[in-house]
Structures are given as structure tokens and as C-alpha cells.
């Protein structure tokens, strides 16, 4: 959490400096998705798309390396929207735990879909990604800027941010409030772009099957609803290595971080 707060403060500082005209570096230049958006244009037209640049591209390549090593650690540790989603999720759970005891209406908030439905809904991200990449390449403009929660929240009313942008972000935040990590799970285009690389990630959460008391706390704490207590190793491409499962585990040394491919 300290790491995430630090990142958010850095992003706010960068956004504020740019908005005040004290710096020429916008927060957009630190968005790795911009690197993916501009890659095709750079290879075909030898030109960056809109406001993207070499920093986006280098960070995206770096992110691919990071993902192959440590799955979606970027989402769980660096992404400001991931951090905000996680805090909303934890806050909602804490807030409605007490209310749920008194009234059934609150018991199901946040609403966790079944794992089967959750897996299917995650595919929504693919058309979102294709739509963004296609239109960005076609128009040469970052036309979805006004819909991007990262840009809208941290650019201090930057270029292309309109009133409806805030309305959309409000709806997204409300969605996260009701459905845990809704943006990351069902809408984030970067999340689906990273998924194949994350799937082959080398770092993994390993569970000691012999020592585990199967209380299920780890699975209940997982912001991505992964069945940690049912597997020996969490090999899901959606694992962000946020370590929530490790923190809530009542026994020591049951959940560990392992580097796959190397013997103990």
C-alpha cells in the first residue's frame, strides 16, 4: 500500500506540474498502453501517435519483461487505477460487513459473480482493446483519452477532458463500488494485452498443500476472485501478486512466492 500511495503521489505531482506549465512531461507519457497504441503507427508510418512518445514505448517493452517475470505485478503494485479499485473494494467490504448483518440488501455488496461468469465477462476487455487500438491507429489521435480513468483523474482537467468524462469516470467508480475491481477485470484494455504474458509469468504464489488448513480466507481476500485455496500454484494470468492472500493466511509459511523453473 505504501508503494501504491507513493506511485499515486508521483502521478499527481507529475500531472500538477504539467497542468501548471512547470513541466513539459504529461502523465500520458508514463502510460504503457500508449506504447502499445503507438507501436503500430511507429512501424508503419515512422511516427508516434498523437501525444505518445518513446517513453510510452520503452515503458511498454519494460512492462512486457516485468509481466513475463512477475505476472500482472504492474496492475497490483503500480497502476493507480488498480490501487484505487483495490482500496474501494476493501473499503466496500469493510463498510458493508456490519450493515450486512442487519439487512440482507447489503449482504451481497460488493457483488461477486460466479467464477464461470467472471471468466466470461473478462473477455469484454478484448473488444475494448481492439476498438481502442483500431480507432487510435485509424485516426492518429488518442480519441479515447476522455474515457481513460487514469488520464481523467490525474491530468488536472487536461486536454480533451470534458464534463461527460467525469460522469463516465463516476459511473466506472460506482461500478467498482458494486462489482469488485470492475474496471480491471472487465474493461481495462492493458489487462487483456498483458494476459498472455502474465499466463507464462515466472513468479507465482505457491501453497503448501500439506500444511494448509483450507479455511478459504485466501480466496475470499483475493481481489480477482482466484481460487487460491484450491490450487498448489496460482498460475492464473490474472494474478497481480498483490499478496493479499499471503497477508490474510492465518498460518505461516503456507503461501510463499516461488520462482518457477528453478529447483528449491
Amino acid at each position, binding site marked *: 500500500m505504501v*508503494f501504491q500511495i507513493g506511485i499515486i503521489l508521483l502521478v499527481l505531482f507529475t500531472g500538477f506540474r504539467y497542468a501548471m*506549465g512547470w513541466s*513539459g*512531461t*504529461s502523465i*500520458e*507519457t508514463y502510460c504503457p498502453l500508449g506504447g502499445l497504441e503507438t507501436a503500430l503507427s*511507429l512501424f508503419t508510418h*515512422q*511516427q*508516434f*501517435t*498523437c*501525444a*505518445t*512518445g*518513446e*517513453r*510510452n*514505448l*520503452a*515503458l511498454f*517493452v*519494460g*512492462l512486457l*519483461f*516485468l509481466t513475463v*517475470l*512477475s505476472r500482472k*505485478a*504492474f496492475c497490483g*503494485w*503500480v497502476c493507480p487505477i488498480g490501487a484505487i479499485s483495490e482500496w474501494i473494494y476493501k473499503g466496500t467490504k469493510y463498510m458493508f460487513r456490519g450493515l450486512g448483518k442487519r439487512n440482507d440488501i447489503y449482504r451481497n455488496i460488493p457483488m461477486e459473480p460466479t467464477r464461470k461468469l467472471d471468466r466470461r465477462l473478462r473477455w469484454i476487455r478484448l473488444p475494448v482493446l481492439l476498438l481502442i487500438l483500431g480507432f487510435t491507429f485509424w485516426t*492518429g*489521435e*488518442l480519441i479515447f483519452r476522455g474515457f481513460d480513468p487514469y488520464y481523467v483523474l490525474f491530468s488536472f482537467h487536461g*486536454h480533451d477532458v470534458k464534463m461527460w468524462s467525469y460522469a463516465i469516470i463516476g459511473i466506472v467508480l460506482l461500478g467498482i463500488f458494486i462489482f469488485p475491481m470492475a474496471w480491471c477485470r472487465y474493461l481495462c484494455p492493458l489487462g487483456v494485452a498483458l494476459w498472455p504474458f502474465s499466463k507464462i509469468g515466472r*513468479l507465482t504464489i*505457491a501453497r503448501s498443500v500439506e500444511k494448509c488448513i483450507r479455511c478459504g480466507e485466501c480466496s475470499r481476500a483475493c481481489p480477482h476472485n482466484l481460487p487460491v485455496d484450491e490450487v498448489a500454484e496460482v498460475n492464473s494470468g490474472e494474478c497481480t*501478486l498483490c*499478496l493479499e492472500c*499471503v497477508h490474510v493466511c492465518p498460518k505461516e509459511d503456507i503461501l*510463499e*512466492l*516461488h*520462482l518457477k523453473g*528453478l*529447483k*528449491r
Partner: protein
Amino acid sequence: MRVPFWTIPVLIVVISLAGLGFSYMISFPSITVTFYGDDQTIPETKKIINLIIDGVTCVDTALKASSTVEDVDGVLKFTAYASHRRVEIEYDPSRTTPEKICNAIEGPVFDQDSGEILFNVFRVLRINETPYHNMNGVTFTRNN
């Protein structure tokens, strides 16, 4: 093999710094516009100024900014790095000065047919005649 949990933030920091360092070493322009023909020779005394321009945010605005210096005699080449709001201008010092170039950038652009102002949106925040990587220590802020 079991690894400590601090491996994750360490990996993130190392790879992020490597990415940022690499991006600092490479530099691709958003647009490059040349204002001389193939038959013209570039004077050996040509100079380069680096400008940070408020309003240059993307390829489109960089193209607009290039049109502000199109008619300035002596401007040879306009290269924009939109993600940094940075513009590099090559000019012939015997025909123009940085001051004239900045005035043109900050001045309005008129429609050639109607004479109406098309746009007047750019503001030069910094001027530097040293290479880009030495620009962090700003040497000169222009007084308007």
C-alpha cells in the same frame, strides 16, 4: 525456488528505471518538417534552438505550430517531440534570430484567403540553444 516477497517491488523499480533510462537514450520525433527544397543547400553556420512550447501536445498541434514558422525567412527545419512539448528548430542565423522565431510561434496564423485568424494558441515557455539533454537546468526564460 522460494524467493522473498520484496523481489516484486525491486523488480518493478529496476525494470521501470531501465525503461525510463532507455527512453531517455532514444528519441523519435513526432513530426519533422523541412522548409528548404532539394536544390537548396543548408548553410554551414546553421544553428539549432530548443523550445518548450505550451500548446504542442500531439502530432496535430505540432503540425499547427510548424505552420507558424513556415513563412519565417531562415527557418530550415522544424522537429517536434510532442510528448515533451519540445520543438527543435534549425535556422540560418544570418537570416533570422530566435526572437523572431518565438514571435512567429506566439503570433496568430491567418487564413491566406479570408485574412481571418486561424489560431493563436502557442506560448513559448523556455528557450535553449544547448542540446536537449542539458535543458533541465533552464538557462533562459523569455520575457514577454
